[in-house]
């Protein structure tokens, strides 16, 4: 199971499609398009502020052959007009594997990587590039033809920060070219912490499916997608930004049909397309996996400024009418659950003398875990003077227990254990006197399946008295919650109203 606080708990939740074969023929030409503005856009790797009229004109125009693909051959991935060192992407060729050599001239030791392998360009020399790839958890470098390189958004970091998720393979995904009946439940978060963006897409799809349809256009002759976002300008106006991507998505190792990030095997394609375009715009999957928030990302999808509301400003009797009206008004609603909750006092330590005292930490749900840096241990009998605290930081698996005469102490946040040993005579009379408190994350309401530190998309009011939210993981869907439960656990509401009607010229 993946760590629940940082990403969806599992992939392949909805089952699905037969793994797809490796991508087909490699394109052999550089991109050429007929629209000057778009040409500039391509050269700027998606940087553009093309007016709606221009992009509409372009979308409907006859165009030159796509990204290097021959006019009569299968379409391949997007190829950059120039490959320079520092670029991230994938090696995509005509075969199941790509061969790399020690030297630029093809001599020296050889090794192969799967087609679609994530790679970083180290050096470019003529029609050859030297790339860095990860093989069996180790980084290796080798040379190959420049024409094999497809620029793609850099992947997200591994949980253990040992490196990038370089084992993910970019593979072409099939699906509806235009979003068909988009709805929030089409979304399923993958292996990174962008629940804010997934929940934003879901909330907008629930409230205004047309806004999702309008945002994504398929370019049939190029086999690419242009996704329209909006960027807030100085002064508060929003201008459209068009990001072009192909449908090669990072997939989990061993299954080229299972998107590693948004999406499911056989599921709707539009969430993954929109996520990939967002990653390209913001710099990488890594960039969007490192942070964001619904108020911004919803506005970037619809072009309308989000409004925020603090549940703490609401009364219980206000909650249902507020959500009913918002839904009636066509508002997309994104809501975030509290970061953490204070535990009840517990007395888990056992031992005598100066220790060691050993503890198994009790949680109200198997998913729950201590927030590093929040543990406090005191002596209810007062023999141990002061407070023992842990020194963990976010992401740590273990921490030290320090202070109040502790000679040594450890806490294992994942195994839910702790131990303490004191300097002579400075410990408690008995382990049971040690009172432990901490903040915890996980299932802050296990009965209703509400997860702390997480964003949800509003779906509707149930029976006029409860609220139904959608978990962007695509699983672990919460049960309907009461207004009191909403006010207890949710700390932020962002609402956004997409422009009515079709916004596609």
């Amino acid at each position, binding site marked *: 199971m993946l760590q629940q*606080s*940082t*990403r969806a708990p599992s992939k392949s939740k909805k089952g699905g499609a037969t793994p797809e074969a490796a991508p087909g023929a490699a394109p052999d030409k550089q991109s050429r398009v007929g629209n000057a503005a778009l040409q500039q856009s391509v050269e*700027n*790797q*998606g*940087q*553009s*502020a093309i007016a709606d009229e221009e992009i509409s004109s372009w979308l409907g125009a006859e165009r030159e052959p796509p990204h290097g693909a021959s006019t009569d051959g299968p379409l391949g991935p997007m190829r950059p007009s120039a490959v320079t060192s*520092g*670029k*991230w992407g994938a090696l995509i060729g005509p075969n199941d594997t790509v061969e790399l050599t020690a030297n630029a001239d093809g001599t020296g030791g050889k090794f192969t990587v799967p087609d679609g392998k994530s790679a970083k360009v180290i050096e470019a020399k003529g029609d050859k590039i030297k790339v860095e790839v990860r093989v069996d958890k180790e980084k290796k470098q080798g040379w190959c033809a420049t024409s094999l390189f497809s620029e793609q958004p850099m992947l997200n970091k591994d949980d253990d920060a040992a490196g990038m998720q370089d084992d993910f393979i970019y593979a072409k995904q099939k699906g509806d070219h235009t979003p068909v009946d988009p709805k929030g439940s089409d979304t399923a978060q993958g292996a*990174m*912490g*962008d*629940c*804010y963006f997934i929940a934003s897409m879901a909330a907008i799809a629930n409230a205004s499916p047309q806004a999702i349809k309008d945002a994504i256009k398929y370019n049939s002759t190029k086999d690419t997608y242009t996704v329209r976002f909006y*960027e*807030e*300008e*100085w002064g*508060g106006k929003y201008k459209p*930004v068009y*990001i072009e991507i192909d449908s090669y998505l990072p997939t989990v190792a061993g299954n080229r049909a299972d998107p590693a990030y948004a999406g499911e095997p056989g599921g709707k394609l539009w969430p993954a397309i929109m996520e990939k375009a967002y990653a*390209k*715009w*913001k*710099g990488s999957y890594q*960039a*969007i*996996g*490192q*942070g*964001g*928030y*619904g*108020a*911004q990302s919803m506005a970037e999808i619809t072009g309308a400024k989000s409004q*925020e509301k*603090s549940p*703490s*400003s609401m009364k219980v009797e206000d909650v249902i009418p507020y959500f009913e009206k918002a839904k009636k008004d066509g508002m997309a609603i994104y809501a*975030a*659950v*509290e*970061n*953490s*909750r*204070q535990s009840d006092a517990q007395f888990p330590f056992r031992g005598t003398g100066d220790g060691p005292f050993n503890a198994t930490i009790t949680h109200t749900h198997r998913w729950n875990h201590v927030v590093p*840096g929040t543990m406090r241990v005191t002596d209810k009998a007062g023999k141990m003077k002061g407070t023992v605290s842990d020194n963990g*930081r*976010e992401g740590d698996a273990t921490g030290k227990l320090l202070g109040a005469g502790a000679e040594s102490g450890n806490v294992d946040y994942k195994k839910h254990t702790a131990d303490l040993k004191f300097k002579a005579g400075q410990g408690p009379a008995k382990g049971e006197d040690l009172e432990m408190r901490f*903040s915890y994350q996980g299932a802050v309401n296990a009965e209703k399946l509400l997860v702390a*530190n*997480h*964003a949800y998309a509003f779906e509707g009011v149930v029976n006029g008295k409860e609220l139904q939210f959608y978990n962007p993981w695509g699983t672990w869907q919460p049960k309907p919650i009461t207004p009191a439960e909403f006010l*207890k656990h*949710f*700390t*932020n509401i962002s609402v956004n109203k997409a422009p009515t009607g079709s916004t596609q010229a």
Partner: protein
Amino acid sequence: MIDCTARVEAGQPIDPHLRDGAVVCLAAGVHPARLVIEQSLTLRGEPGAILDGTLDGSRGGPVVHVPGDQLVVKVVGLTIRGGAGDAGGGVRLSGWSELTLEECVVEDNEATLAGGGVGGGALAERGKLSLLSTRFGNNRASSGSDLYANGVATVDIQGGEFGGDVFFVDGVRATVTGSRVRGKLGARGTTTRAPSVSLRGTAVDGGIENDPNLPAALVVEDG
């Protein structure tokens, strides 16, 4: 002599005193609060005054949030702690307003939403955030543990001290003068624009990470 329009003892509600033009003075001690400020006003802390966003054992929402436009808000001499949110744990400026923190301490706040929280100590999205002789420490976030400035915010930092990281993203315009960042100072644009960051007489212990592919326009003087 400070003219307070209201003086609030520790533990008493602050919200009823938030009015346009108010100077709300907070007595020493802990003031549990998550303030959504929608008026132009000043919050002034007496020595030892603490705004704490932990309410009923729960952490959620920034301690000070200015969502409105065309406001001028000053926070002086306060410790801001215990805030948490998906964005901006301690302080959040999301409106086209001016928010100034002067001689404040922003500590022990977090923005860790599903691994993607930004701005544990403070988040500025638009408007102007001024940090004058303000110290940040022990804040947590996936990006910008102490400060994350994003979108179309202007940030002016003078005499600041940051125990953690500072991150400037997107179209931000930031000036950091006479300050110290013990963590990292990061900067990254998008494919459509880049932040503008000027560092003057500022030490960055953890190093400057200016994204190589989408770099900020970075100027370093006397650093």
